């Protein structure tokens, strides 16, 4: 099976969705629970693939390095953001390659990004709070030409939900439900 993806099933799913758009709607949920200090546990909630409920029994720990008042017990939120971005770009790249009939041998995406914490700290400077830039390199071996891989790279970013979420304004609508504890 090319790249361990069943192209026929991928094609059938694409054609199914063209006729039944509700099958393309993915409902995700995640809960982040504070554990201690800068450490938190993320747990996936059951999701919906189209109109079908699917169990997602996964959890992981995030933390900050000791230098940032943490205990270094897990990747930090910036690394998890890059992970979410990179693994989504990876799915997009692999699916696109498979659809084109490109056999891949290896793919590695190498990310680097620099953050100026003065924004987080509220120190009055012109620095942004978030990443001003994310740099990456895709190292790929497979049976396509350099031009074909370049075009695949372009399209895989254009169709990656997480890349597009980062590249475009997104509504972040939150509420707070608070309980005051009387001392």
């Amino acid at each position, binding site marked *: *099976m*090319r790249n361990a*993806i*069943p*192209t*026929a*099933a*991928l*094609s*059938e799913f*694409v*054609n*199914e969705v*063209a006729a039944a758009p509700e099958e393309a709607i993915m409902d995700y949920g995640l809960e982040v629970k504070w554990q201690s200090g800068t450490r938190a546990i993320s747990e996936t*909630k*059951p999701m*919906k693939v189209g*109109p*079908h*409920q*699917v*169990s*997602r*029994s*996964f959890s992981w720990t995030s933390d900050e390095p000791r230098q940032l008042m943490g205990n270094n017990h897990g990747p930090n939120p910036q690394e998890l953001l890059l992970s979410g971005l990179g693994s989504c770009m990876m799915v997009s790249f692999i*699916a*696109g390659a498979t*659809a*084109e*009939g490109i056999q891949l041998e290896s793919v590695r995406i190498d990310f680097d990004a620099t953050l100026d914490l003065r924004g987080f700290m509220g120190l009055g400077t012109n620095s942004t709070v978030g990443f001003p830039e994310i740099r990456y390199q895709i190292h790929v071996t497979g049976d396509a030409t350099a031009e*074909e891989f370049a*075009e695949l790279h372009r*399209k895989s970013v254009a*169709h990656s939900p997480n890349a597009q979420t980062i590249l475009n304004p997104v509504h972040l609508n939150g509420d707070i439900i608070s309980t005051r504890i009387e001392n």
Partner: protein
Amino acid sequence: MTNPKILGDDASLPPASTKGGWLNDLNRARAAGPFLAAHPAPGTGPSTTAVHAGTHDDPRTGAVGTPIYQASTFVLNDGQYRSVEDGFARDRFIYSRYGNPSQWAVQEKLAALEGAESAIVFSSGMAAITSTVLALMDKGAHVVASSDLYGGTFNLFNQEFPTLGMSCTMVDSYDFDAIEAAIQPNTQMLYFEAITNPLLKVIDIPRLAEIAKRRNVRLVVDATFAPPVAMRTLDHGVDVVIHSASKYLNGHSDLIAGVAAGPRKLIDMIWPRLLNYGGSLDPHACFLLERGLKTLAVRMRAHEESALALAEYLESHPRVQKVFYPFLPSHPDYDTASRLLKNGTGNVTFFIEGGDAAALRLVDALNIPKQATSLGGVESLISLPFNTSQATFTAKQRADVGIDPGCVRLSVGIEDAADLIADFKQALTAIYPAKEAAHA
């Protein structure tokens, strides 16, 4: 030299891959099958379908009926390699654990009988159940099932699920509020039996289907006790129907097999589990099953005729306390059965005076029914839940699920009703002391 012919379903072609294209350029859509050849249905009636659907005369010799393709492996060509590469190996012949023409023929017949796009036969009903359930469940998933499940399925849910990080809540299949309340955010499936064993409860499947659809979970139904002809389970909104084909579908008590049928999308998800768990059906067993299926409709009519007549006789017998047969007006689910079942079956459960000791004497005194477990064969089979299917229960546990002492589980074959009635009459007379019988 490579054979350029398509060795498999020639309607199934690889998706065209377009250099520089994206996913929306993929042009292969899902279709029913896989089929040996284009084979338009010669009719719509259950008997015509049972005889003709899926049966493919030998194209080389004209021999009538599907040949037995007793081969473990197939000569490969570029087309088969391509099917592996592009992920549609289910539509080509490669190796008999993946697929075999004898399997395809009987699968097509079963799919036609159930009104399904696709079907897979397995080496047993439990292989079909395990492969189907595990195909539709993920890590941490939960299933809501009936509390009176077949013991093999109960063991899968009770013994294997915790090991796999899955869980099950078992509820009374009459209690729709409890069924709905048991659905959790990680529930992926409702799993029920169309007719339960041994009390022959007829489950209101359309109501289950409504709940499943509204709550976004799949509905899987084991319809072993309600084969097509009696009920087309998928017509009532079920996602996947499963059978132990060893019972009514084959009908001759001479093989072990199972089947799962439903939309191509879901059956294609089950197929990799057939490969991984290895429950493939041998070609010779496929031939026997296909041959058995040809008479399904006439057999089911004969089962109903004899079973109903015998059930009516038993109900009138003074030593018989209760009789359960869905087409008896006294059956608690008579209305549901009248609505859902187009044909009766051979299963009759009854309770006699004198408890399990009397029931043991009865099965020994009968001449026609074989004292054996299983059901759905042309020969009548009789067994007692207390020492077979519910032997691990205590008497109280049995009573809690309605299996009171003196419970007899009978699968009426296709023997003549008059002979069966005469046999039960002599046996019931023989097992009770003559003096008491005079008072009866």
